[in-house]
């Protein structure tokens, strides 16, 4: 049995979504830009999909631009915000963004832009006073996530947006993890630009959308043909757009039942905390997505836990350094200031509407033994260990 609890990494394509897109991979292969009705009929389904996505967000169809993924959306948004106010050369973002924001910001710093990376506290939350203090008249863009991919912690985007607007900055949100999991209504919002990605909400990989508020002076990132009203060149990925539309429609229905996911998540979380000592929920004190939990298992290492889980057919993920192949553990958990004892041993379980009670039961059944086995191998067992303290200091200096 496969127990898939890695839905923040990617989700299963909903069978209804697959069915909706299939004809456009076979007989209905026309190009919507063509001047014949064979292609033209495809154009109509793109507009239908646009409406479905707009409905999920409380937006208007003309405010939706289809693109290839969340990373493209984030790159495009930053580019657009800087192009909209070229005289402003300062960006405010947070230390816990996805690399598709952070890498762009780092790159822009090299090109002479100033970037402020807002810190988070141990619960993963921002300090709005720090945001206020960072804002200047020269701030072109404030970009933050709606919900964090690793911890599920939700940021107060409307409060952030109000501050951004007070300083005349563009406000972009990376809503890749939030769309379909928490309600979003852009009709009453300070958000100018919003990124979403299909594969996180049961559409296939390689399709996304960028919301651009009506009236926003948007400059395109990808130049070429006149697709998407000249705002994003490139022949439409018709099957994937249809899929995203269908997925958005299903997500809207599903929002009403998301409590079930939250209940399962809570059961998993409480079960682990109750049966395994020295465990903590990272970001547990903050408002969180209903589907995500990030649990720190002290004194053991995340990649080893994942390989043990994998043997039981359980899929999860870890921000440990060994998982990524880099030498540094998750920038998100590091920014939260987690102690080293948990930093390397944190596991993210992320659920979806397909998650069953049996899957949660399976994790609860095997987890204590896995942790016990790895702890039996570990030279560490308590925070007071002299060796631990000593080495920690050595590293800090």
């Amino acid at each position: 049995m496969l127990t898939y609890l890695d839905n923040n990494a990617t989700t299963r394509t909903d069978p209804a979504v697959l069915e909706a897109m299939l004809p456009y991979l076979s007989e209905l292969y026309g190009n919507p830009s063509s001047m014949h009705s064979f292609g033209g009929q495809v154009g109509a389904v793109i507009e239908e999909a646009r409406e479905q996505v707009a409905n999920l967000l409380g937006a208007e169809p003309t405010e939706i631009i289809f693109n290839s993924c969340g990373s493209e959306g984030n790159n495009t948004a930053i580019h657009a915000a800087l192009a909209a106010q070229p005289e402003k050369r300062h960006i405010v973002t947070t230390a816990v963004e996805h690399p598709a924001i952070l890498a762009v910001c780092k790159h822009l710093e090299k090109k002479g832009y100033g970037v402020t990376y807002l810190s988070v506290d141990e619960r993963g939350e921002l300090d709005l006073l720090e945001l206020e203090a960072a804002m200047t008249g020269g701030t072109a863009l404030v970009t933050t996530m709606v919900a964090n991919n690793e911890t599920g912690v939700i940021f107060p985007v409307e409060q952030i947006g109000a501050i951004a607007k007070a300083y005349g900055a563009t406000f972009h949100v990376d809503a890749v993890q939030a769309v379909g999991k928490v309600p979003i209504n852009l009709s009453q919002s300070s958000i100018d630009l919003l990124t979403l990605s299909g594969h996180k909400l049961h559409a296939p990989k390689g399709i996304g959308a960028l919301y651009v508020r009506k009236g926003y002076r948007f400059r395109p990132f990808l130049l070429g043909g006149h697709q998407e009203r000249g705002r994003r060149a490139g022949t439409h990925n018709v099957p994937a757009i249809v899929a995203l539309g269908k997925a958005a429609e299903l997500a809207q229905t599903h929002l009403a039942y998301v409590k079930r996911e939250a209940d399962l998540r809570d059961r998993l979380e409480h079960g682990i905390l109750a049966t395994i000592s020295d465990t903590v929920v990272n970001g547990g004190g903050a408002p969180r997505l209903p589907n995500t939990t990030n649990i720190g298992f002290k004194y053991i290492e995340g990649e080893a836990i994942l390989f043990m889980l994998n043997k039981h057919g359980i899929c999860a993920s870890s921000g440990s350094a060994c998982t990524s192949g880099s030498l540094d553990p998750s920038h998100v958990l590091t920014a939260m200031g987690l102690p080293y004892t948990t930093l390397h041993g944190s596991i993210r379980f992320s659920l979806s509407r397909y998650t069953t009670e049996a899957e949660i039961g399976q994790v609860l059944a095997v987890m204590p033994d896995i942790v016990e086995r790895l702890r039996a191998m570990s030279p560490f067992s308590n925070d007071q260990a002299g060796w631990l303290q000593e080495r920690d200091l050595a590293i800090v200096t």
Partner: protein
Amino acid sequence: MWDYSEKVLELFYNPLNQGSIDDPNQPDVAVVFGEVGSIACGDALRLHLKVQPSTDSILDARFQTFGCTSAIASSSALTEIIKGRTLDQALHITNRDIADFLGGLPEAKMHCSVMGQEALEAAIYKYRGIEVEHHEEDDGTLVCTCYGISEKKIRRAIAENDLSTVEQVTNYVKAGGGCGSCLAGIEDLILDAQQSVETVRAAAELAVEREQGIQPPISLTNLQKITMIQTVLDKEVRPVLVADGGDVSLHDVEGDRVLVKLQGACGSCPSSTETLKYAIEAKLQDLVLPSLVVEAI
């Protein structure tokens, strides 16, 4: 997902020799442990040895490891390798031996095998009463302050594993994986190692030549000179240039002036022409005659 060998997974799921060793208080049995790494770094190993002083050999070995799949497998492999060996034999074990025992490790995980080798060394030094502090003082200066990696450790990894890029050094000993401010320093150590390898090679060749009674040429006829220049250009210089889309041809030799024609990618940019000219000149001076000068036409 990491592409671990069967052996790595086998030793991870069913590790051999995990745990610690209590001192049995028996005659001719000593117990010692050595440790490396820290929880901050993300991996740490405490290696326990049971030693027979009369034979100076390892009776038993156990490990306690905080770390990933390959760190645990490397630790277990190490204990299997060293059991029954004398301490002197054990000191000759390199990280490569551990990696080979495991049927290889992913490149980015090689540092796990280095950790094993270091813990072994730490344990043996401790047993022999060589102060670890003292040993580390000899280690030379720290090159990478982020990970606390000394010059000696980097040099050793380069030499034992024939490393030629900074990325490899980071994979093997972690140095350079943090802030990156030590990357240039690591590169210098690699260049240094490569040069010393070449020096050794050249010295060896010279020794062989001396033995065979071949004297390096003192004066050359013009024809000999041109032939040698052409050979060096063909064998040493052109292959590198052609690989980069450029080329060089010998136009003329007037006394010590070597006139060459630079072509293609390299010929097009003035600064690279300058660099190239000196590079070719250095090669020719080295291998043909020290008095040669190169001119691009």
